[in-house]
């Protein structure tokens, strides 16, 4: 099914704590079975984003980057599965990350998920994190949120929950 151009929300984060805070605000909208795909360069804040969201979902264990583990599961009010496809070479290798990834009773965060779009469900939230100034690691982060499939119905709620971070887009691509 061809997809209409997905709705996009652009946010601005002042740093790691701000990224965690906005992810926590977004987490209030997450439900079992949701899939959030994250992309952005090393240090852009993908893991910070998952840390903030997971804590808001009741995860008490410390969330760490799954780059070497490939996938990690966390117990919470809503279980969280955090995967990373960075080390994979083929789309189908995502299945090696286990059956908990994309399960109906967890929230799945998948780093670099946009690289394996053909494997992802059509209903998903895509988050892209960018350095506002690529030369400056301490620069603000610009986050583009794209709602796909049934996530479109949550676009207005997302904009409301994330209103404090909705920022100017002048530097974004």
């Amino acid at each position: 099914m061809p997809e209409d151009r997905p709705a996009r929300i652009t946010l601005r984060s002042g740093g790691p704590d701000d990224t965690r805070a906005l992810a926590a605000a977004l987490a209030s909208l997450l439900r079992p079975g949701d899939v959030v795909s994250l992309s952005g360069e090393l240090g852009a804040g993908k893991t910070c984003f998952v840390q903030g969201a997971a804590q808001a979902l009741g995860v008490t264990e410390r969330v760490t980057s799954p780059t070497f583990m490939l996938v990690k599961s966390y117990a919470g009010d809503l279980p969280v599965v955090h995967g990373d496809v960075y080390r994979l070479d083929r789309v189908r290798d995502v299945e090696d990350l286990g059956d908990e990834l994309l399960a109906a009773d967890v929230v799945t965060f998948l780093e670099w998920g946009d690289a394996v779009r053909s494997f992802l469900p059509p209903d998903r939230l895509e988050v892209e994190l960018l350095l506002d100034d690529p030369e400056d690691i301490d620069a603000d982060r610009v986050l583009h949120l794209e709602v796909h499939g049934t996530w479109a119905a949550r676009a207005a709620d997302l904009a409301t929950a994330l209103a404090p971070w909705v920022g100017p887009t002048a530097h974004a691509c």
Partner: protein
Amino acid sequence: MGRTDGARVLILAIESSTPRSSVALAERDVVVASASLGVPQRHGEFLGPALQFCLEQAGASVGDVTGVAVGVGPGLFTGLRVGIATAQTFAAARSLPVVGLSGLDVLAFRSRHVGRLVCTALDARRRELFWAFYRQAPGGMQQVAEPQVGDAGELAAEIAAQGGDCLVVGDGGLRYGDELAAAGADLAGPADAWPDAADLAQLAVPRFLREETHEPQSLQPIYLRRADARIGWQERGRMHGGAG
């Protein structure tokens, strides 16, 4: 116990291709023990203890098992492979024959007394289903077309093309019930939502008796999805050598 003529036939059945794993032991056509898992996705931690439990309940030992049946999908990739690997290891260690059966066939077997077209449909995630159609035939159910993967709209169109007179069985039918019912299908209840090892054992026993079996290493999971693709990291500008 079943018939007493002939040698002992004790079949171990392992079905872990869906969120609901199960293990069963059948003495000829009688299921003598079974265990199933309500909590999804913990195949690896479940199969070993479940196997032990079934042997204890049946008063049997590992050495009494004469064949291993296993569900070969389509289904959840990791569960499927854990099940197949467990069956292969068990069978290879004792030089036992194996039978691999599709979960869609096992699910259809449950509806073998339904005198109409049966469609078994399992949730394939990503808004897709695995499905196959069956008709009653002497001694069981006969698949009437190759199994497929697709979305609920495609399955609904197939059901409509069959005239809509069809019973849909499986968790895919439960999940996409509205769309399938609109095409005219009737939906089976949640009791028959997943293939079960007890049914797998019963369906497999005649194959062991007829010696329609395989070598353990020849078992292959059924994979219905389209061909694999390489991830275009270079085109995406992945920073090679970085920690991600």
